[in-house]
């Protein structure tokens, strides 16, 4: 099922780290007791609903809410007029910086509707039925405009223009005319044109992907209450309640200290809940109605009105020597940003060649607005898309050279000391070990039968550190709580408890993790960027270490020895002073019981901005079988190897790898946003937006390679995002091998595959 390969210098011998205790929130989650965003009820709560544009692009000429307000049971209606107009301002809150003006307009339209589903008004009423009826009574007068969704069509000079204020950034000189091209990104090294011209072997390809949604099963949901004195309570499921606080404050021009956000359990995010859609609207409704408001999206709204990730075009040209040294790479990316600038094309550029040592490259990325929902982060944002193109081209190169696809990547692979394409120098990375682990896996030797194909692909994600706060409190009976401000989206609570327990020298069950609200713990950046185990874990460890220092001081006082003569081992203070003879150790429980007498409560809080996050390298292997008559693809085997640094809780690390693989397989085979001629989404539900179901997948084999990160107390590296990067190309290359035709346009639905087989035979 899964292997954990320790490197010789891993220095294992942990008591708790690396074990698999049952997660602390497990009982609530398997009994239905855990409270998610839509589960909260507050006294006097109203139901909110949002009215959304039916047009992909339209001027809003007027909104008349009088009939809606007159309906008995309706307590408030808000529109764009109830929200302040913000200046353009970049604020760090999500995984990247967000423009507050754009965020605010996305939350509630002002003079234009920019995509089908764009919020134009909202209502609060005493029952869902009345709120529903009131929506129909809000009269919105639109002037429909031509729309554009395809990224290359949006780049054309005569394309319908979304924003008159948008002038392309990143060009040599600022253009005189606005366009839909928000920004050009460029990364250059060496002389790629000369290197390509001189290359003995070249490979060229054009690859395309469609917009896909994160697909979390829990729709966005919140309950918000603003009291007449302006104090706000928000309960919502998000990937960062401090982010929710920041964004609500900005969008509504409130003081941060007047907003208290409590995190509900979150039913999946994958980046899609690193922003806000509902909370500011619920607060505005609550203010107008004078009562708490619950606002929950339907599945239809989730698809039409929350960010998928970009669809994109990837053009790749590779140059190599005949013996398989890649000398040149040119990558051009064009990404849909949706209605506002900010596609992940920048990170896609930065990661595109990160697994390779290429002396000459030019990577260009275009961020292009389109009349579709504003894209949101989706697990390693941008990287899967550029990796699809690059890895497909590398696979084509391997075929052309007759080279083994893993060996070709190892030969040209990133290693310690290499300067990454995006700047920093790699240290303590485990990429070569990961490739080797994949090559050694028994699945790589399984012989293939007719109509079967094998694909190999690799992937990279930086992982981030950032600001986190953690507190450790010791109770009077010696049990402890570890308090953080990061919503638990994948089992991180268990890892926090494990790390604190390891430092304190107690069992994981004796440390209870708590995710506290924004008023009860210091600031934390959100749960994303694969940062929580790394950065918040670091804060947890430092806080636990401070607690241990304090415990040692208490013991030193009790024994009247200098604190240097006290050691902490196995959850006990040990007296090292030879003069004190056989002093029995003092346990954590014993010290806690005397804490009032020895100086007061034992507690520590640490805030930090974690540096030194270790990047994630993944190498995947996918075997498929294609039915040549129907084009139907069956995934036979999938093997995911990854450098995880140190698996704090191995089962949850495996889970991250398997989950990322499943999303990547869906992205490759069946998922896509389908728009009709009017720019309306045709498949805004789980019937026709086809995520993988249990019968679509085999068991997913994982190999966790541990090359510890020296910058983390236990060697942890982020693990959550790298697993989604390779599958698009791994699946596509496997299908291409099975049918003998390169498949370059995702998703690989059966009709496309059958057509490719027919064209080959023709």
């Amino acid at each position: 099922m899964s292997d954990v390969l320790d490197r010789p210098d891993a220095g294992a011998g942990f008591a708790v780290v690396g074990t698999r205790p049952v997660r602390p929130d497990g009982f609530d989650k398997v009994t239905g007791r855990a409270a998610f965003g839509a589960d909260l009820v507050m006294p006097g709560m109203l139901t909110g609903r949002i009215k959304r544009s039916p047009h992909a692009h339209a001027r809003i000429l007027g909104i008349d809410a009088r009939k809606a307000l007159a309906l008995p049971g309706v307590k408030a209606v808000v529109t764009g007029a109830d929200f302040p107009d913000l200046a353009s301002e970049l604020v760090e809150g999500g995984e990247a910086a967000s423009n507050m003006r754009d965020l605010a307009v996305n939350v509630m339209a002002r003079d234009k509707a920019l995509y089908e589903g764009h919020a134009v008004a909202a209502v609060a009423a005493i029952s869902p039925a009345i709120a529903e009826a009131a929506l129909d009574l809000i009269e919105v007068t639109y002037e429909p405009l031509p729309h554009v969704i395809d990224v290359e069509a949006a780049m054309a000079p005569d394309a319908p223009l979304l924003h008159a204020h948008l002038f392309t950034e990143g060009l040599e000189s600022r253009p005189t005319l606005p366009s839909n091209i928000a920004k050009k990104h460029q990364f250059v090294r060496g002389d790629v044109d000369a290197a390509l011209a001189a290359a003995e072997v070249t490979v060229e390809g054009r690859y395309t992907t469609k917009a896909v949604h994160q697909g979390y099963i829990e729709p966005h949901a919140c309950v918000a209450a603003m009291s007449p004195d302006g104090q706000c309570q928000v309960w919502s499921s998000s990937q960062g309640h401090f982010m929710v606080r920041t964004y609500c404050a900005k969008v509504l021009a409130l003081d941060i200290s007047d907003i208290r956000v409590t995190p509900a359990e979150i039913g999946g995010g994958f980046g899609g809940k690193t922003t806000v859609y509902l909370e500011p609207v619920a607060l505005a409704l609550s203010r107008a109605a004078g009562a708490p408001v619950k606002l929950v999206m339907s599945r239809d709204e989730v698809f039409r009105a929350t960010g998928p990730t970009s669809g994109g075009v990837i053009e790749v040209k590779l140059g190599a020597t005949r013996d398989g040294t890649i000398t040149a790479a040119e990558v051009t990316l064009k990404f849909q940003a949706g209605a506002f600038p900010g596609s992940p094309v920048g990170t896609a550029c930065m990661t595109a060649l990160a697994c390779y040592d290429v002396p000459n490259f030019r990577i260009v990325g275009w961020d292009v607005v389109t009349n579709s929902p504003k894209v949101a982060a989706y697990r390693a944002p941008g990287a899967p898309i550029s990796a699809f193109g690059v890895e497909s081209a590398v696979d084509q190169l391997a075929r052309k050279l007759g080279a083994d696809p893993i060996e070709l990547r190892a030969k040209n692979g990133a290693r310690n000391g290499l300067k990454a394409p995006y700047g920093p120098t790699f240290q303590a990375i485990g990429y070569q070990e990961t490739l080797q682990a994949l090559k050694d896996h028994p699945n790589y030797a399984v012989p293939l039968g007719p109509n079967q194909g094998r694909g190999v692909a690799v992937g990279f994600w930086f992982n981030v550190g950032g600001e986190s706060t953690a507190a450790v409190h010791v109770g009077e009976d010696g049990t402890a709580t570890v308090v953080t401000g990061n919503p638990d989206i994948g089992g991180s609570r268990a890892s926090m408890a494990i790390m604190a327990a390891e430092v304190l020298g107690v069992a994981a069950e004796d440390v209870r993790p708590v995710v506290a609200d924004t008023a009860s713990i210091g600031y934390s950046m959100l749960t994303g960027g694969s940062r929580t185990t790394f950065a918040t874990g670091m804060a947890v460890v430092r806080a636990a270490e401070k607690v241990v220092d304090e415990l040692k001081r208490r013991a030193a006082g009790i024994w009247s020895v200098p604190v240097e003569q006290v050691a902490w081992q196995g959850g006990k203070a040990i007296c090292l002073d030879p003069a004190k003879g056989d002093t029995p150790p003092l346990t954590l429980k014993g010290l806690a019981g005397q804490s009032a007498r020895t100086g007061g409560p034992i507690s520590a809080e640490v805030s930090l901005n974690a540096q030194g996050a270790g990047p994630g390298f993944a190498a995947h292997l996918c075997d498929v079988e294609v039915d040549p008559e129907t084009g139907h693809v069956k995934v036979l085997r999938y093997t995911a190897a990854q450098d995880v640094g140190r698996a704090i809780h191995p089962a949850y690390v495996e889970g991250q790898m398997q989950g990322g693989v499943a999303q990547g397989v869906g992205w490759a085979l069946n998922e896509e946003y389908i728009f009709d001629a009017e720019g309306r989404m045709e498949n805004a539900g789980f019937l026709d937006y086809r995520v993988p179901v249990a019968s679509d997948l085999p068991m997913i084999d994982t190999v966790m390679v541990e090359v510890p990160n020296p910058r983390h107390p236990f060697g942890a590296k982020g693990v959550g995002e790298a697993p989604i990067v390779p599958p698009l190309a791994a699946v596509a290359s496997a299908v291409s091998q099975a049918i003998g035709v390169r498949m370059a346009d995702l998703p690989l639905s059966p009709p496309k595959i059958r057509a490719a087989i027919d064209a080959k035979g023709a």
Partner: protein
Amino acid sequence: MAQFDYVAPTSVEDAVKALVAAPAAKAMAGGTDLIVQMRAGRAKPATVVDLKRIPGAIGVRRAPDGGFIIGAATAGAVIGEDAALARAWPGVVEAANLIGSTQVQGRASLGGNLCNASPAADSVPALIAARATCVIVGPAGRREAAVETIQAGPGRTSLQPGEFVLELRLPPRPSHASDAYQRLIPRTEMDIAVVGVGVNLVLDADGRIAEAHVALGAVAPSTLLVAEAGAALVGGPLDEAALQRLDAAAQAACRPISDKRGTAEYRTQIAGVLARRVARIAYDRAKANA
């Protein structure tokens, strides 16, 4: 969902009265199509008439002539549990059991599948190939009609105001007879059929095909009973020549659309592919049925 009145009559007469009383009344069996449509605003009945408490609407029983009578509101899961029905009509049963997930199978019915009148309904090709009939009740009394006559186009039936389907009937089975159904979907489960094919064969004692019925789903506004495809099989064993004739006849009959689930060209190709595969399965089953 828009508001409506809900009634659950306990007799055919009361159900007919309820359907006639409100012009915008709709019958509901399992609700797995109707509730979805009401929630999406595509159906706005003033009254929903729940058929499930009417005697005879739920259950599988034998007719005196050895055929089967299936209550129109019987859930697919219940149909799948009837061993005798599965032995005699494995194609009808597997088609019924392909409608939706296990959860949907707990509710979805043959009557609902037929009267929802989606061109891609899974059970309809198998029922038509089986030459199944419906017992329809209404203001004018009781009548029986072939299943294919109920279809009037996407989302429309030939039922008159106040009528609903109470039962589906399958004829008695001779020896050396069996049926099969397959559909093509992009995933392995949970999808609407891109193409569905039902084949029903009766063989003589020497393994020659004496009777053949082939029905195609999702390739036309309604499920097609393709006489030429059946005729292509009759007279001999299921050899390659017969399969080729079948394939060609199936493809020739297709009048599909291109939509988000498949192109017209693809649907036509797959109709031929599935016809071959389903005919083979029905043939092997029929030969094994003494």
